[in-house]
């Protein structure tokens, strides 16, 4: 059994504005039992919890955690499995990450225009980009760039949440290395693109290496 976690912050420190809510939430989420988090409405994505929870609530929760000693691992097993079962069938869109060690990355990046080098997208954040995709022989199979500059003002770039397996892996991994404003050329091996099947309806043959010129316009 792990040792009880130590109390890091005094009441004064907790009340201080220097201590961000997210830090307190992170601590409680890391150390409290599932049912404790559920009762105090501290379950879920860090950002969402930070939006809805007030500092006072967090201080109360923090103190109650140490008083009740309802840390992780102190719950009877049956309760936990019951909770997992009830959580199971949800309307989620995200797949849990499959951590498989596959070796070196299957894409190459050449920066054409530098970004701001500060705003890098994180997994789960929304990104927007203009792009053009071509095959090895130069055929353009897809682009969202309108034909004229005027039309570009009227159109919207492609937006999606990066790093969640919604796009081909080459995009997910590649865009995470780009910063806002950057334009780069990604060269993606078929294993991180459409693989052995290709995408015949979109003119991508089997085992095709794909070349994308991507401009990362916005991050979140």
């Amino acid at each position: 059994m792990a040792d009880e976690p130590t109390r890091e912050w005094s009441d004064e420190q907790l009340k201080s504005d220097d201590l961000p809510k997210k830090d307190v939430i992170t601590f409680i989420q890391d150390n409290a039992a599932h049912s404790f988090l559920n009762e105090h409405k501290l379950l879920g994505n860090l950002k969402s919890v930070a939006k809805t929870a007030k500092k006072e609530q967090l201080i109360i929760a923090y103190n109650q955690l140490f008083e009740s000693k309802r840390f992780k691992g102190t719950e009877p097993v049956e309760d936990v499995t019951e909770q997992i079962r009830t959580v199971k069938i949800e309307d989620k869109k995200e797949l849990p990450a499959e951590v498989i060690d596959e070796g070196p990355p299957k894409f190459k990046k050449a920066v054409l225009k530098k970004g701001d080098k500060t705003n890098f997208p994180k997994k789960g954040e929304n990104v927007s980009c203009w792009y053009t995709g071509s095959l090895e022989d130069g055929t353009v199979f897809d682009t969202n760039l309108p034909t004229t500059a005027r039309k570009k003002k009227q159109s919207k770039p492609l937006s999606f949440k990066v790093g969640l397996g919604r796009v081909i892996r080459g995009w997910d991994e590649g865009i995470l290395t780009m910063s806002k404003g950057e334009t780069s050329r990604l060269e993606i091996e078929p294993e991180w693109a459409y693989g052995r099947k290709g995408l015949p309806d979109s003119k991508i043959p089997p085992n095709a290496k794909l070349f994308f010129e991507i401009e990362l316009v916005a991050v979140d």
Partner: protein
Amino acid sequence: MGLPTRAEETLIVDEDEVNDIIQRWRNTPEEKLKPEDYQQFKNFGSVCLTGGDGAQLLKFLQDEENRGIVKSMGCVLMTPLVNEVVQKGKSLDHCQAAITHLTMTCSPDELMHSLLELIEDIDPGAISETILTLLPHLQTVLLHLEDSKAARLGSALCALQQQLSRLPVPYSPQQEDEDEHGLCRCYNALTNFTKPFVEEVKRKIGSSVTTSEDEELRTELLKFCMRSLREPLLEAELNRDRKSSLWLFATEIMVTLPAIQESLSELLFFSPLKKSPQMDSSESKESRACLAYLLFVQLITIDSFPAVFSPVFVLQCNMEYINQLLSSKTESHVLKGLALYEKSLENVQDNSLPVSLQDLKSFYSAPQNLRQVLTDCPMQHLRETGLQVLQLFIDKLNSEAKHKFFRCMLKTSHHAGVESYIVKNIRNQVECSIKQGNANKWFLGEELLPLLGLVLSLPQGAQTDLLNSMDKIMESLNLLRYLFIRDKDLRSTIVWEKLCRIKDEYLKMLRVCISISRGYYAAELKALRQDQKIKAREARDAARSSRLVKSITVKNEKMSNMSPEVQHQVLQSALVTFDLMESLIFRIEEITDEKQNSQKLN
């Protein structure tokens, strides 16, 4: 003669009276005109038309001196004029010209009102003719409107589509070509009708001068597209090899959406249903399901769809729509659902879908809906396609996911046919694992046991209806036979001992069931034969004494509807089935003994 009374108003004989009335109208400002005046003017017009005097009416309307009258009261003539055109009356051209004149002269607001009323009161026998007649004029009036154009366009489109939804959608190419009710012609006319408004939105949206009116116009056009996707397109039979009328209409809708800045990927993948424009959520899902079908299966405008999404994500998103379509009882919906399911699965690598996907509600529901199609759908071609899709789905799951899916289906399908199909798949997986040489723990290792436990079990014990579960039992015996033939590959695993125990219990129970069932059916057969003998004797007696024979009670209630010959056949074939099962069990025992003996010898 006196002044015409109310009842006689339609019988106008006195020309002087008419001229007087007209003169009075010429001098009356609009505000002073009474409802009786409008009614009378309408009657004059109707009389002209029924009398075949369309030319005279036109002349009257075009007369500059009557301009005031036409401007104030012209709208009341819309209905009689349109009806005349629809009924192909004598003065068709004059009527058309008259309508055109009215649309240029009267106030657009009033015209709009008259036209909407016309649509709402359409004669059900002349829906398409009326709409085809109205559309160009409706367009003219709308383009003349100064304000509330978007709202009126919305009302018009809604009313038009509501009327069109009363017409049956053609379901064969021949029907579509014949277009008996004019449905196809109307929808194509509707596309032309909306074109100028689409162009307007294209110009304005996204530019710096968008107003709320422009936004409203976009919304109304979006609603039109979404409604069209539901009706008629979801019902229609579309085929990319035959670019029919409705195909062209579908293409127009697919092109209009991005033209009004509605991105297809946003609509299909990223829009929560709550945001949908004033359509209830299942209607909105139907529209999007149709959209997904048109895009991914019929490939309409697929070349402008982003080619960057991962196939698994596309499958995930389409699952919602697949579910919607498969849970419908309408053939055209289920067909589209199956096609979308198949297409979405095809782009995914074999053996790749992870088990975590089955925790998603839509992923769990789709195969359940598929199973229901397989067991309940009365149309054979749908069941056949459904089975193909089921196999394709299974092929795409990775080993762990297959394992979980098989367990789930065995527990929930309650249908021997489906269960037998699953057992066959399990056998294939065991075979695959053995051949590949990789000791796949799901089909060769410890995890195989819980699965076999489900396959080789008779939950109703001695009460099992063997005939009902025949398919599953035969398939499970096949699996057992296979496992014991390939004992070499299994003996080394931890599975073997437990497998033998499961087999023994299963076969023991099965033998009990067979002997009980055989006993029952043999008794039934005997009773049937006795019954036949009695009936034959009675018939002979009756023929001799020429008395009416009373109707004979049948002992066996279950088969009371069948003739004795058929009953006999059924009982016989039941007994044959039991023999088959027993011979298979016997064969399995034979194999087991052979292997045991060869083991002892080694």
